[in-house]
């Protein structure tokens, strides 16, 4: 396959609207006669509802309706995303009396005004029977499950066992054996989760903020027991998501139910403190990494063992070693992944859901090995590249990690680094540390359908199933069409995020570009052929509209489909049911990953030990870069996330109470502008020759694989302290 050439760096197609505040988000919809809702949540760690007292709430002026578990008869739970459902967890609150975790909704109050709904919600009280609960990896009552023994699809969720890692490790003259911990985190996009539901007869329209309108349509129809044909879900823009909005949340069906009961539209914007308990989050993990190398620096063995939190009611599997096994060419590799069941809402996807913590652990261990060997950490990684995948024996569709490392080292000035910890200082005594880490992320592809329509008045309208959540999907698909039809990207109108269009896939896992761009490109190629047939003699400069006018045709429409290499046609049926339909990263002929290298400089103040990150250089191999502007933003954003994960973010859990304690943006510390220095990003920008017709792999997730490790390695280089947990805080360095 030959892909397109390099793409021009042009402004976001939605930039003007965004800076003017004109972009329509889900909660911006105000249908006439709108009522407002507020949730009431459980205050116990686990147990059962005995009674919900709603009298006082109903007495509040303006309150129209209070829904509790007694009003949900006939409602069915749709099921968990990883168990053929479309919800972020299997528990649908307010069906039945069981309380699985603190913060679970127990009532929905609906009123004429938001203020009355809030006041009503404050007036709801409940009586419970409490049960013992455990909420941390190490709490008593936490149940430890070996993932390989669980009813999860194999080989995807089997332990890896390549070569004989234990024997090679035992024989290795230089070894590392260390345990690394990562804290729970919440995605915290700025846009909150919201639902606006209105009924017209038996037809339901829902405005949301989601990565998957079709999942919500199908899941909602199932829960309500109505035909999906009666449901339309609209989410043209999503104000940040980072995995949080990839599945259906509890409030959607409750708001739809309230709207049906009241016979008027209802809106709910879930407050942030409740979001900490009503969406997924990044679970805490513990990694034991063992590495063995010969004295020349050839890494001969790795054993990567992981414990990851899941909920009592669902199995959120760990897929971390899929990636750690591919970071370097280590011929003997063994993994063991375990899940720890606790009484929380089901944890889930947060940008680089497994890979962020896995890369922190694995790339810290590689750094420890570099010091054990006294080898430069960049050189050590370069010396351990293999051209094929040791897990499957197949080739990589493309692998330019060495180029990422070399180019990054060059841009960063890595050659001037002194190896010894505490050996680089500013004149005022500030400790300087330089760290490096690599990352990888699986390339997978979902099925995609693109419809392209050109009209004789110059209209070029692309309707393709992909969600825009700020990552730049609109830019990418518009650029793909513009490139083929020789127009500007901003001349292409993109219709996304509406179940009235072609069935959209769940846009997640960095597969959006590799899924939608090839379909969009194929539609554009088909369109170009169709136009050529209309006017074979047309000059090179002829516009689509000009050709249509010449042929006296008001419009022309084409539809193109795309699916992963080797994917069965059944993936389209799964997509139409709103289910997971991706294939990869193992394909019949190859294995596909994106790769990245991060170089980080930290400054650590000598007395108070505050850590600053004045500069970062990141180079990514994501195949062809279709939208340079948004791709660069994705990389910078991923690095900012890495800095947050490395130095600040942690969702705090008090095991005596359950739930999350620092449930707001003042206390859950994400980096602020003043924390971010210079971030220089670059791309290999070589089209992947095997994965798809556009040569694209994924980018958004890989950007956050490795930066935290690079920060931790830089902190070690600056201070001589190897901190093996995230986040790294002042008290770790004093």
């Amino acid at each position: 396959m030959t892909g397109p050439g390099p793409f021009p760096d042009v402004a976001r197609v939605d930039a003007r609207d965004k800076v003017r505040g004109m972009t329509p988000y889900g909660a911006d919809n105000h249908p006439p006669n709108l009522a407002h809702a507020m949730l009431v949540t459980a205050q116990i760690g686990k147990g059962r509802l005995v009674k919900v007292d709603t009298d006082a709430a109903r007495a509040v002026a303006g309150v129209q309706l209070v829904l509790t578990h007694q009003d949900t008869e006939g409602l069915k739970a749709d099921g968990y995303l990883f168990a053929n459902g479309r919800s972020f967890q299997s528990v649908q609150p307010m069906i039945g009396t069981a309380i699985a975790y603190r913060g679970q909704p127990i009532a929905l109050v609906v009123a004429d005004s938001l203020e009355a709904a809030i006041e009503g919600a404050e007036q709801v009280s409940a009586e419970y029977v409490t049960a013992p609960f455990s909420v941390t990896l190490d709490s008593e009552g936490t149940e430890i499950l070996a993932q390989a023994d669980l009813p999860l699809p194999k080989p995807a969720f089997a332990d890896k066992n390549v070569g004989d890692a234990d024997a090679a490790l035992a024989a290795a003259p230089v070894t590392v054996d260390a345990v690394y911990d990562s804290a729970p985190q919440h995605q915290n996009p700025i846009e909150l989760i919201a639902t606006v539901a209105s009924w017209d007869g038996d037809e339901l329209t829902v405005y949301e903020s989601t990565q998957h309108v079709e999942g919500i349509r199908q899941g909602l129809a199932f829960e309500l027991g109505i035909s999906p044909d009666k449901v339309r879900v609209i989410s043209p823009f999503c104000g940040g998501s980072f995995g949080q909005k990839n599945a259906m949340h509890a409030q959607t069906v409750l708001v739809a139910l309230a709207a049906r009961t009241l016979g008027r539209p209802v809106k709910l914007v879930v407050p942030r403190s409740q979001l900490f308990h009503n969406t997924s989050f990044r679970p805490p993990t513990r990694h034991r990494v063992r590495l063995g190398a010969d004295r020349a620096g050839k890494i001969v063995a790795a054993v990567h063992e992981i414990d990851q939190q899941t909920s009592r009611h669902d199995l959120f599997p760990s897929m971390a070693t899929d990636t750690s096994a591919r970071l370097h060419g280590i011929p003997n590799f063994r993994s063991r992944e375990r899940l720890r069941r606790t009484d929380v809402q089901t944890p889930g996807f947060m940008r680089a859901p497994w890979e962020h913590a896995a890369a922190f652990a694995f790339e810290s261990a590689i750094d420890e090995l570099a010091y054990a060997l006294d080898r430069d950490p960049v050189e050590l990684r370069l010396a351990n590249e293999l051209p094929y995948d040791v897990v499957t024996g197949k080739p990589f569709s493309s692998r330019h990690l060495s180029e990422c490392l070399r180019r990054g080292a060059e841009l960063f000035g890595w050659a001037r680094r002194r190896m010894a910890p505490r050996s680089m200082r500013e004149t005022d005594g500030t400790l300087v540390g330089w760290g490096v880490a690599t990352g990888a992320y699986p390339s997978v592809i979902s099925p995609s359908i693109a419809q392209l329509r050109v009209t004789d008045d110059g209209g070029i309208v692309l309707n393709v199933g992909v969600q825009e959540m700020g990552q730049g999907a609109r830019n990418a698909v518009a650029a793909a069409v513009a490139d083929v039809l020789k127009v500007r990207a901003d001349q292409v109108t993109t219709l996304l995020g509406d179940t009235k269009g072609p069935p959209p896939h769940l846009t997640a896992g960095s597969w959006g570009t590799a899924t939608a761009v090839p379909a969009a490109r194929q539609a554009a190629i088909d369109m170009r052929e169709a136009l050529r047939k209309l006017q074979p003699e047309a000059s090179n400069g002829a516009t689509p509209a000009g050709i249509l006018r010449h042929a006296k045709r008001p419009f022309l429409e084409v539809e193109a489909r795309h699916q992963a290499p080797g994917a069965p046609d059944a993936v389209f049926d799964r997509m139409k049911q709103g289910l997971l339909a991706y294939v990869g990263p193992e394909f019949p002929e190859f294995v596909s990953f994106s790769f990245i290298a991060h170089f980080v400089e930290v400054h650590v103040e000598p007395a108070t030990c505050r850590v600053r990150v004045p500069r970062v250089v990141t180079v990514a191999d994501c195949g062809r870069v279709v939208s340079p502007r948004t791709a660069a933003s994705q990389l910078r954003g991923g690095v900012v996330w890495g800095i947050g994960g490395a130095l600040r973010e942690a969702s705090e859990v008090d095991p005596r109470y359950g739930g999350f304690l620092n449930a707001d943006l003042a206390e859950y510390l994400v980096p602020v502008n003043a924390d971010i220095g210079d971030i220089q990003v670059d791309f290999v920008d070589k089209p992947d020759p095997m994965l798809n017709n556009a040569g694209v792999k994924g980018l958004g997730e890989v950007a956050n694989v490795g930066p935290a490790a690079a920060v931790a390695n830089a902190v070690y280089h600056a201070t001589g302290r190897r901190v093996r947990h995230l986040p790294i805080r002042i008290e770790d360095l004093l």
Partner: protein
Amino acid sequence: MRSFAYARPLTVMAAVQALADASPHARIIAGGTTLYDLMKLNIEAPQALVDVSRLGELTTFDTSGTRELVFGAMARMSDIAADRTLQTDYPALAESLWLAASPQVRNMATVGGNLLQRTRCAYFRGGAPYPCNKRQPGSGCAAIGGLDRSHAILGTSTSCVAVYPGDWAVALAAFDAQLDTVSPRGERTIPIDELHREPGETPHLETILKPDELIVRIRVPVTVAGRASTYHKIRDRASYAFALASAAVALRVDGDTVREARIALGGVATRPWRARDAERALMGGALTEGSARAAGELAFTAARTGQYNRFKVELGARTIAEALMIAKGRAKTS
């Protein structure tokens, strides 16, 4: 969030009258950045608000006086932080405002309301089910034995370990500021050191102010130690975070000899904390890295630590030591 009565008087006299009329259920509101926040969290539910933000006579400030600096209680944090005279003659005061909150908050918040901001203890702010003696007297303290990383190590009691979160009051404490108040009972002057209480058995009583007592102005005696001063704030991120430990330090030195040392601490205590032992230890001696460090340690001899905040002893000592050296550097250049 409940409905409440609301009055917005335009003169101090009218404000006092409004407070008298609505007492004891009225609350004063200025910029609202603390009070509205707590009302939304349902931690505070006043029945009546007296909005004092339009008391024009209290929005001004004057840093040019020869005896004292005068700040109207309704002056904005951002306006005072931007004052050139303050920045050069009393950097600790300017920095304590500059390093607080965010530009948006500083543009709304008043320096009077600032003194009365309430603790960020997550168990206090979290509401039910957490017991909190401050929020609900007698219910207990969830922070003791809980996630207490950000909590106080000085001035704590068995009822409460919540940190006083503000910066400005700490800097004012270092300079022995005074507050003028008015209430239906008349006027009085309160030394800043007496404004805040230690929690003791009554952590819900945070200050000695009466509910209907309005702070009208803050006065700071003029001192040359102002020039050699700093507000050194150590926190988890570079901006928009409360202090893990902070020190307001002001010095008067004669050659190498310390003639006057003022040290007040934030982020580590239940109220703005004057470190008088540390001050005394420095008096009459030369300020060196060693004596600064010793003073820092002395300030924490009475510290009582919990599960996760032990590091504040060391961090606090280092913060004081570093602040002293910064202040000393400013003494030389002035």
